[in-house]
C-alpha cells in the first residue's frame, strides 16, 4: 500500500518539477499545482496509510475506533488543497495579465524587469514603461567614458 502511494508521489513530483522548469508560464503554474498535489500526498503518506476507516467517532463511543485513519494529516491537507486553489487562481490571473501586457507567455522573453545588458558592466536601462528614468537620463547619470577606467 505504502509503496503504491510512494510510486504515485514520485510520478507526481517528477511531472511537477519538469513542468516547473518549463519556459511556458502556464506549464510552470500547472507544474506548481501538480507539485502541490504531490506535497499533499506526501503529508498524507507521512501520517502513515493503512487503516481506511474515516476519522469519525462512531455514535455511542467517546474516541476514534481502531482502524480509523489518522485525522491529523487530513486536516492539514484539506486546508492546503483549498489554499492551493486560491493561489493557483492568483497565478492564473497574473499570467493572464502578463500575456495581455506583453503578448507572450514565454518566461525567457519577459524582459521588462530584467532587460538584457547593453554595456560591459553598467546595469541595463530600466524601460520607460515601468517607471524608470528615460534612457537619456540614465546615460547622463553615468560617469563620462573618459573617467571610467579603461
Amino acid at each position, binding site marked *: 500500500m505504502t509503496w503504491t502511494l510512494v510510486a504515485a508521489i514520485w510520478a507526481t513530483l517528477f511531472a511537477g518539477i519538469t513542468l516547473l522548469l518549463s519556459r511556458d508560464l502556464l506549464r510552470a503554474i500547472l507544474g506548481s499545482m501538480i507539485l502541490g498535489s504531490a506535497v499533499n500526498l506526501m503529508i498524507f503518506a507521512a501520517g502513515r496509510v493503512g487503516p481506511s476507516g474515516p476519522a469519525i*467517532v462512531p455514535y455511542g463511543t467517546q474516541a476514534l475506533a481502531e482502524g480509523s485513519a489518522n485525522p491529523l494529516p487530513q486536516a492539514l491537507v484539506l486546508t492546503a488543497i483549498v*489554499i492551493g486553489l486560491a493561489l493557483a487562481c492568483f497565478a492564473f490571473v497574473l499570467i493572464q495579465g502578463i500575456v495581455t501586457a506583453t503578448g507572450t507567455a514565454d518566461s525567457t522573453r519577459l524582459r521588462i524587469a530584467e532587460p*538584457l545588458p547593453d554595456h560591459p558592466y553598467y546595469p541595463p536601462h530600466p524601460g520607460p514603461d515601468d517607471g524608470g528614468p528615460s534612457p537619456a537620463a540614465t546615460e547622463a547619470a553615468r560617469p563620462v567614458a573618459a573617467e571610467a577606467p579603461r
Partner: protein
Amino acid sequence: MADATHADPDHAHADTAHAGLSLVACALWIALPASVLAAVLWLATHGPLPVAVSRDWVPALGVSFAFRIDGLSLMMLLLISGIGVAVFSYAGAYMAGDPKQVRLYGLLTAFMLAMAGAVTADDVILLFLFWEATSILSFLLVGLKHDKPEARKSAQQALLVTGTGGLALLAGLLILVQQFGTTQLSAIVAGMADSGPTPLSNAALLLIFVGCFTKSAQFPFHFWLPNAMAAPTPVSAYLHSATMVKLGVFLLARFDAGAGEWPLWTMLLQAVGSITAAWGMTLALSERDLKRILAWSTVATLGTLVVLVGLPGPEASLAVGSLLLAHALYKAPLFFVAGNVDHGAGTRIIDNLGNLRRSMPLTAVAAALAGLSMAGLPLSFGYVVKVVTYEAKAVEGVLTWVPLANQIFTALAVAVAGTAAIRLFWWNPGGVEAPAAHECSWGMVLPPLVVAGAGLVLGFYPGIVTELLLGVAGAMETTRPGVVALPTPAEQLNPADIWGTVGATLLAGGFILYFWDFLHRVLMRPFAVVARMGARAFFDASLAALPRIAARVTRGLQHGNGPRYMMLAVVATLAALAAVLPRALADVALPVWEAPSAGLATGVAMIVAGAVAVLLLRDRFVLILAAGLVGYGSAVVFLFLGAPDVAFTQFVVETVFVIIAAAVLIALRGGGKAQVHADRSMPVALLLAGALASAVTALLVAVIARPFDPVLSDYFGSVSVPEAFGRNVVNVILVDFRAVDTLGEITVIALSFMAALPLLQRLMASTADIATQAGGRRVVMLDVVAGPLYRVILIASIVVYFRGHNEPGGGFIGGLLAVTATILWAIAHGSRAAEARLPFGNALVLTAAGFGLGAAAGLPAWLYGLPYMTHLWATIPLGITDLKVSTVYLFDLGVYLAVWGGLGGYVLHLLGRMRQDDREGSVT
C-alpha cells in the same frame, strides 16, 4: 556637513582676506588640542600609568567603552596633541581666507578625537571603530579640495587601501576575540604572551598585519601615501606624517608584548619593514615635488619603525619610541616648510626652486633645524635615535639584510634632508629661481620653528624624555626595562663616531644629494618598469576589473531567465538533500510491500496516467485536463484511505480548477498570444526533475520507515467528542483545536482574491458587461435547469456545512459547493447576474464578511476569561429535542462564506472573460 553650511555664505568672498576665520575663532579651535596636550603632559608627569576606565556598551557581546592609557598610548597622545597644536596653528594662517577653513578645522578636530580614541581604546571593537573613523576622516581630508579630480582620486585610493586593510584587521581581531574569549585588548595581548604561537593566532596575526601595513603604507601597500599629498599641507603634516600613518606601527607595537618573540612576527616585520625602508626611500629619487619626496621618506621611516617593532629586545622598543618622537619632530616641520615654499614661491617642484634663504629666511632656519635632526647629525634628537637604533640592531636574531636596508635608508635620509634644507635654500642646481618668492606670515613660520627647535632641545637634553621612552618600551615588553642612558651632548660629539659611522653616512648622503638630478634621470627608466608591475598597477587593474567581475557575477546569477532560476533552486535543493539523505537512509527498515486495494490502485493509476500525460501532451487544453486527472486521482486515493472530507474537497477543487484554467486558456487563445517554441532544455529538465523527485521520495521513505509517533493523532481522536463535542475529528481539528490556523488560511484566500482584484478589474475593463450582452449564445437547456439546480446545490452546501461537525463535510467543502453553484449561474446567466445572487451582492464584501465572522467567532471566549478562539457551547431545549448551539458553527460559517466569496470572486471574473471571448466567436 554642518561646517559646509557655515562656509557656504563666505564662498562668494573667497578672494578676500576675511572669508576665513577670525583670529579669535582660530584660537578657539587651537584651544582643543592645546588642552589635550596640557592633560597629556600632566598625566606624563603626575599620573601613575596605566590609567584605565571602562563602561559597558554592548554587554551581550562583551563590548565595552574601555580605555587604557599606558606608556605607548601616552607617547601617541603626546604626538597627537603636540603636533596637533602646531598643525591647528599652522592651518589658521595657511588656510586664512579660504572658505574651507571651517570644514578643515572641524574634520581635523574629529580626526584628532578619533586618533586619541584609537590609541587609548582597550576594547578591540572600539579600537576598530576609531581606526575606521580615522580612515574615513582621512578620506574627507585628502579630498578637501574635492573640486579637483586628482584630490578625489587620491582620497578614494587612500580609503580603498586602508579600508580594505581595516576589514582584514577586523577579521584578525575577531579571531583573537574568539580565541581568548574577551574583547579586552590588554587581556588578549597578555593571553598571546602566555599561549605562544598557534596556527589560529598566526592567521589572526597575518590579518592584523594587513591592516597595519595598509594603514602605515608598508610594502606592497605603500603607494597610496604619496598620492595622499593632494591634501592641504596641515593635513599632510598631521595625518600622513605624524599621526594616522603611525597607527599601524602603534598597533603592531601594542601586540609586541604578546607576539614579539614569535618567529612569524620577527621574520615578517623585519622583512617587510626593511623592504619598505630601502625601497620607499629610493622612490624619493623618482620625484620632483618636495612634498612627495618627503612622503616617500615618511614611508621609509615607517618601514624602519616596523623593523624596530619586529626586532626582539627592549633596546628595539626603546628605539621605536624615540623614532616615533623624532620623526614627528622633524617631518612635521619639513611638511610645513614645503607648505611655506609652495605658498611663498608658488611651486613645490625642486627644479624651479633655489636660494630661497634670501626671500624666506625664517623658513630656511626651520628647514635647517629639522634637516639636522632628519640627517641624524650630533646634537639633534635624530642623532640620539640613530644611536639607540644602532644598539637595537646589535642583538641576536636580526635578518642579514636589515643593516643593509638601514644603510640605504640613512644615507638617502641625509640626501632628502639636504634637499629640503640645503638645495632649496642655499643652492640652486636647477638654475631657476622663483622671482616673486616671499616669506610667509608668522603663523606659518612659528610652528615649524618651534617643533623643529624642540627636536634640537631634546638632542641637548635627551634626559627629558627618558621616562617617556621607558614607558613606551615598558608597554611593548612583558617586563619594563631598567634605567637607560640616552647619549649626552658630550657623548654625541665623540670624534670616533663622527669620523666613523656618522661621517660615512653623511658622505654617502652628500654624494646622493649632489648627484640627485643625475640619479633621478638614470633611475627613471627602471622605476617606470617596476611601476608597471608594482602594487599600484595591480591596484589600478583591480579597480578597473571590479565592475566587470561584479557585472559577470551579477549577470551570471541575475540573468532574467525564469527556467534557469528554477534550475538553480532545484540544484541547490538537490545539494542540500544529498547532504542529509545518506544519514536519513542509514539503517532504516523499509516498509514491506502490500498489494493495494482496488480503489487505491485506481487512484494511483489515474495519478500516474495524468503525470505521464502532462509530460507528453502539447495541447494546452488537454494538458489542463491531464493535470486535473492528477487531482482527481489524488481524490480517489484520499477516498479509499479513509479521508472522505479531503476527497470531497479535492474533487470540488479540481472541478473548479479545470473550469478556471479553461477560462484563462480561452482568453489567452482568443488573443493568440501564447505561442511558445519547444523547450531545448527539456532533457536537462527531465534529468533534474528525476533526480529531485527521487531524492524527495527517498526522504519520504526514510520518514515512513521510522516508527510512527501517534501521540497527537490519538490525542485528537480521544478528546474530540468529550471536549469539542464533535465526531468528525478532521473538522474538529480545523474549526476548534487549530481554529486560529484555519483563520490564517481563510485570510490567505481572502488576501489572494483582494490582491488579484485590481488586476482582474483591469483585465475586465476592456470587456463590456457580460450579463446584458450574453444572450446570443445561451444554452437554453442550461437556462431551464440552472434555476432549480442553483438552489439545490446551495441547499446541499448548507447541509454539508451543518453536518460537518459530526459527519464528513464542513465549511470548506460547503463553501466549495457554493462556488460550483455560482459557476453554474455564471455560465447560464453571466457573471454580473451570478455576482448579484451572492449574499451582499458582491464577492469582495462576502469574502470580508466571512473572514470577519470567523475572526469574531473567537471573541466571546474573552467574556469568560478564556483564550481567544475557545469555542463556547450552549443547549437550547426545544421540548422534543435539545438544540446545541456553539460559536464553532459561527466560525465554520465564516470559513464557508470566505471560501465562497474568495474563490467565487475569481470564478466570476475569469468566467466573465471567457464568455466575452466566447461570444466574439474567437474560439475555434
